């Protein structure tokens, strides 16, 4: 998960607060980030599913796109349906390459006079270069480390945030507004990456700690680190870029075709569209699936997957212990013939073949706000 470099680590606006809270800090995507707090990964995970977790996601890249024809232009880089994206709404999409591989996954919000993007921390440099090169005439403004981003996630998130901003309680899932939280200008998106209801709150860097402290003072809110963020998203069946999706996986193989509208499937017009269209019509050679080990041993990333006859049919791309599932959980790619839910598989863990089967995703029900 971490990427070690020789260059000094970047700090988010909450770095001092993480240390004050006793976080264990690790390098992640070039940033000094909290992997866990004294509560520990297991309890942080369960707390988020039962109450509310506050995550520092300021390392992610926030980008504003402005200019005439920006929607048409961005549709040339992503297969997402942007023309039908109403003002105030957010869509999940991905940058593709000419082979239909995924360069990064991202959120795109229509903010009326501009588009607002959130991209992965590890990809933001190349993403911005890709946007600048691919969108001539469009102003690409990277908000950089001037802007913080917090995620407030969990079944009580709406109750907590509504104490400050009553109007957020009924915000639709995947919508975004501007607001003033105790006088601090913020953007609020009803979105997240834990499978729970929740919000992502954008704040100027110099006020991010103020907002974090206001939220942490609420009794239901606990600070949650990257460790639990990973186990939460894995249980929710959500892809982690660089692990479950990358330049060698297509949206069809990754099971992300729900994010490509009928019009975009038919019209194409994004990098790799011919390959995606062919895989949609004929099927792909392999698919991302959920994997449920039958025993208690977790199967980690890169674990070899075999079929009943001992043939290698794939590899685990994310795997670990799911605290809410109270069992090991994994995702990985298997050949199309082995991708049906219930298919028996073997996971080769420390030289032993452990029984598992293809499981439907997510491992725990997603609980997004549906009004």
């Amino acid at each position, binding site marked *: 998960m971490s990427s070690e470099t020789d260059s000094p680590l970047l700090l988010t606006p909450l770095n001092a607060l993480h240390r004050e809270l006793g976080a264990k800090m690790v390098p992640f995507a070039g940033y000094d980030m909290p*992997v*866990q707090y004294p509560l*520990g*990964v*297991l*309890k942080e*995970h369960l707390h988020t599913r039962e109450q509310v977790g506050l995550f520092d996601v300021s390392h992610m890249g926030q980008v504003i796109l402005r200019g005439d024809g920006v929607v048409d232009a961005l549709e040339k880089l992503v297969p997402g349906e942007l023309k039908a994206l109403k003002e105030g709404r957010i869509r999940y999409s991905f940058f593709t390459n000419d082979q239909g591989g995924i360069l990064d996954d991202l959120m795109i919000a229509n903010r009326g006079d501009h588009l607002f993007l959130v991209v992965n921390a590890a990809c933001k440099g190349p993403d911005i270069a890709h946007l600048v090169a691919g969108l001539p005439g469009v102003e690409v403004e990277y908000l950089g480390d001037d802007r913080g981003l917090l995620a407030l996630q969990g079944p009580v998130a709406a109750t907590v945030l509504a104490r400050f901003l009553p109007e957020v309680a009924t915000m639709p899932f995947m919508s975004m507004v501007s607001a003033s939280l105790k006088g601090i200008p913020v953007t609020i998106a009803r979105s997240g990456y834990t499978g729970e209801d929740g919000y992502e709150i954008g704040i100027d860097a110099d006020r991010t700690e103020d907002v974090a402290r206001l939220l942490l003072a609420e009794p239901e809110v606990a600070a949650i680190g990257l*460790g*639990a963020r*990973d*186990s939460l998203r894995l249980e929710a069946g959500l892809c982690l870029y660089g692990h479950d999706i990358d330049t060698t996986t297509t949206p069809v193989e990754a099971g992300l075709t729900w994010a490509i509208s009928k019009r975009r499937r038919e019209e194409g017009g994004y990098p790799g569209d011919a390959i995606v269209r062919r895989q949609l019509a004929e099927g792909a050679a392999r698919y991302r699936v959920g994997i449920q080990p039958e025993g*208690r*041993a*977790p199967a*980690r990333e890169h674990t070899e997957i075999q079929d009943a006859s001992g043939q290698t049919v794939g590899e685990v791309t994310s795997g*670990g*212990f799911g*605290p809410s599932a109270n069992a*090991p959980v994994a995702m990985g790619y298997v050949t199309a013939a082995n991708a049906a839910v219930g298919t028996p598989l073997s996971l080769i863990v*420390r030289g032993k073949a452990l029984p598992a089967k293809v499981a439907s995703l997510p491992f725990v029900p997603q609980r997004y706000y549906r009004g």
Partner: protein
Amino acid sequence: MTIRFTEDHEWISVDGDVATVGITTFAQSQLGDVVFVEVPEAGRALTKGKDAAVVESVKAASEVFAPVDGTVVEGNQAVVDEPALVNSDPQGAGWFFKMTLANPAQLDGLMDQAAYDAFVEGQH
């Protein structure tokens, strides 16, 4: 009873002909919440410094190495059934396995409590 420690943060407590092995309080604090443990079966021959057991936290898998040469007498089924014992009582009920010693002189190469405490201090 003699207790010795390895640089890989195993402890070995020797009582007569049989030694009990586990991971230290420091090791479990570094691992975090333990969710899976695999212990060796009785009769398995162990080699100093080689894999003997497995301990996994939510985030990562780690090997537990044999502190000395010998043969497994018993694996601790209690930690297999309840891995959290490794966190709550790492140097007591959270032991991993008991073994005989093929070469008791190997204990002399391990750290005593004072040396281990100093070693852990140096890890910070």
